[in-house]
């Protein structure tokens, strides 16, 4: 065991971050598997990429900083890179889906259009009531 000289506060912090990161990763991919349409499914991995990866990267930073007795923060490279590229990837996949859906005659866009009028009425109704 290489973490023998680890103080308790660091061990508890690392444990908390690792358990949280693992659970959030699992929840995000569960959303990827269980949600119904593609436009709902794309929100699941966003949780995995931001919060799950963030927690585990933070745990790695804390662990190596404490065990090596010097600031080890090069995990910030991965954090910055992942946080910068995740929106780009999501936007490109979403654009590909929006571009491909009318061609394949898939249901999701049609379903969203069918639900849109009632939602628009709900959202549009409240401000006018508030104003009057």
């Amino acid at each position: 065991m290489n973490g023998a000289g680890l103080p308790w506060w660091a061990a508890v912090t690392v444990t908390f971050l690792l358990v949280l990161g693992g659970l959030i990763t699992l929840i995000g991919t569960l959303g990827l598997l269980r949600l119904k349409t593609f436009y709902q499914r794309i929100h699941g991995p966003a949780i995995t990429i931001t919060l799950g990866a963030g927690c585990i990267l933070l745990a790695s930073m804390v662990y190596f900083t404490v065990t090596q007795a010097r600031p080890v923060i090069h995990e910030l490279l991965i954090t910055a890179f992942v946080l910068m590229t995740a929106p780009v990837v999501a936007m490109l996949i979403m654009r590909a889906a929006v571009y491909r859906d009318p061609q394949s005659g898939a249901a999701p866009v049609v379903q969203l259009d069918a639900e849109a009028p009632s939602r628009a009425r709900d959202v549009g109704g409240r401000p006018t009531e508030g104003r009057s």
Partner: protein
Amino acid sequence: MTPGTLVFLAIGFALVCVVLAMMLCTVRLLIGPSAQDRVLALDTLWMCTMLLALMLGIRYGSQVYFEAALIIALLGFVSTIALAKFLMRGEVIE
């Protein structure tokens, strides 16, 4: 119970969680009704692999796994961009 044992157990739990997450991604990759679902599942699979490499780095106390994780993150980004571009335009480099 020493602090090292606590971290050891936490890493075991997180490893099991991430491997389960990779299995769920694989199921979506196999059953995905459309191509963009499969690309999304593959992107999430890259991300889970990166997390797996990081956690193995904590487990074995080695800095080498950090560089592997960095390379996995870079390759995952580039491959997902290429696949999304292919889905949009039908070819990667025009």
